[in-house]
């Protein structure tokens, strides 16, 4: 059977047994062997064959089990992210032609014509999964902040295209949820490569997550720069000893790369580019922000170009299309997906400057919040920052910043120390940025809101 044509369960069945690899959730452990040999669906498996199934589970482990059960069995899997609004579910179901829902525990009304499948205790698989031969289409939802989430269709081949099954089976960990592209990539690596994986859990304190990662002996850990900045503020992070540290999902600035190198001496710190639509693009491991401009002209599995300021990617791993609704075409005529991530060439390096939709317009001059944050984050006293627009009667908008600092000041001279730090940060901005990009107001915050996808919550006023 061809690599890409093999459903997940087939990978598990063919893997070497008895190695103790497992998916680890808080208080629960499910071995890959059990995942291969048992099923929680029993007779429901037949009923789910060839259906368009919405996977809407409360826990990530239940979602992982569902994916192994359904890949090769269902015609289409739609993976509901944890923050999918109940009010959006009818539109998602209609758009994706859903005729079955796999859920755990309580389930709202999904309509009379829909098969509801609730897995039970796992029992031995009756027929060695002979039925799991379909080329199931996978549909992931984007995490847009407004409007309906877009449904992005992938083939299994595209999703696993960047995975090397012969790689040594490590212990994977991620701050991502596996029901989004970034987390799903890690889960697929664990399932296909026979590695263990420590699942994240929404709402779990970072210290507890770190303790679980340490106990499992995590070797490969990934998350967004925002996740990592929070991890760096957690003392328990010192208890893990990873071999590979990886960032993706947001711009990895030099400050966060340097901080991670200091926190994990000798560890390979890499930042990767991937998106739900564009798939896995590339990984950079030289410790510098941005990526080599030479990658743009490289011949390989991934073709990249810059058009109208934004990065465009074409590869066998890009999504095939949008599902449902009146969504625009996913790729242009030549097959390139517009990432809407704006890039700029500086010497032999391409730098990410921000999202097309996030641009702040200061009296006709453009400001990318991310470029200002990168400057603020360079100050040694700063852990993370959020730059946003504030409406202004003269220029339409003006730039302001919320900053989280590395340590708290003693009460006695807090005001003076804060004023001094603020002046230093603003001096750094003025020395580096044109006047309209320098924050007009800078406030210290205890924490910054992060979205369920692990990115800084941006709400431009």
């Amino acid at each position, binding site marked *: 059977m061809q690599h890409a044509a093999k459903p997940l369960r087939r990978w598990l069945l063919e893997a070497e047994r008895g190695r103790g690899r497992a998916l680890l959730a808080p208080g629960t452990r499910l071995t890959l062997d059990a995942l291969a040999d048992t099923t929680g669906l029993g007779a429901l498996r037949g009923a789910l064959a060839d259906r368009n199934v919405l996977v809407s589970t409360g826990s990530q482990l239940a979602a992982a089990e569902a994916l192994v059960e359904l890949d090769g069995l269902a015609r289409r899997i739609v993976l509901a992210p944890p923050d999918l609004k109940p009010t959006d579910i009818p539109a998602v179901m209609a758009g994706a032609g859903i005729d079955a829902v796999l859920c755990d525990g309580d389930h709202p009304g999904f309509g009379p014509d829909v098969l509801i499948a609730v897995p039970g205790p796992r029992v031995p698989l009756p027929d060695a999964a002979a039925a799991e031969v379909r080329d199931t289409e996978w549909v992931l939802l984007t995490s847009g902040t407004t409007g309906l989430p877009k449904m992005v269709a992938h083939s299994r081949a595209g999703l696993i295209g960047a995975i090397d099954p012969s790689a040594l089976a490590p212990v994977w960990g991620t701050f991502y949820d596996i029901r989004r592209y970034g987390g799903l990539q890690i889960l697929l690596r664990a399932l296909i490569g026979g590695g263990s994986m420590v699942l994240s859990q929404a709402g779990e304190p970072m210290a507890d997550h770190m303790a679980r990662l340490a106990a499992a002996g995590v070797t490969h850990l990934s998350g967004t720069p925002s996740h990592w900045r929070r991890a760096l503020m957690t003392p328990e992070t010192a208890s893990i000893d990873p071999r590979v540290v990886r960032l993706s999902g947001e711009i990895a600035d030099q400050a966060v790369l340097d901080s991670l190198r200091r926190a994990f001496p000798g560890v390979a710190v890499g930042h990767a580019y991937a998106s739900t639509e564009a798939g896995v693009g590339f990984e950079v491991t030289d410790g510098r922000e941005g990526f080599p401009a030479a990658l743009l002209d490289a011949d390989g599995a991934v073709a990249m170009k810059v058009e109208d300021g934004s990065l465009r990617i074409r590869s066998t791993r890009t999504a095939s299309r949008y599902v449902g609704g009146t969504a625009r075409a996913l790729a242009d005529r030549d097959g390139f997906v517009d990432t809407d991530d704006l890039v700029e060439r500086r010497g032999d390096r391409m730098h990410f400057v921000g999202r097309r939709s996030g641009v702040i317009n200061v*009296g006709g001059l453009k400001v990318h919040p991310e470029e200002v944050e990168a400057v603020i984050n360079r100050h040694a006293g700063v852990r993370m920052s959020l730059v946003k627009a*504030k409406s202004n009667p*003269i220029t339409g908008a*003006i730039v302001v910043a919320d900053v989280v600092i590395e340590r708290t000041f003693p009460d006695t001279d807090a005001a003076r120390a804060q004023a001094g730090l603020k002046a230093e940060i603003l001096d750094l901005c003025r020395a580096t940025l044109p006047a*309209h990009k320098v924050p*007009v*107001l800078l406030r210290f915050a205890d924490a910054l809101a992060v979205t369920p996808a692990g990115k800084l919550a941006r709400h431009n006023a």
Partner: protein
Amino acid sequence: MDMQSVITAAIEAVAAEQGKTLRPLTDDLVLLESGLDSLCFAILVTRLEDEVGFDPFTLSDDVYFPVTLGDFIRFYDDAARSQAAPTLAA
């Protein structure tokens, strides 16, 4: 501190920070000739809002742009009074 002192101090701070040379800050100084550019005014309005707690430009329903420094200070003074006065609508 009265509004006039707050505003002139803020203007001087913005000018110093943006490297602008100010004309003497008299009541009849035409703002556009004061030495501040529009970014400086944008910064000024934002800083004043931070300091006094309101931005009269967005409070007012009319589109009003003060011409002289005196107009500008009165605009803030008027807004401060209406801020302080209890309103039935509140």
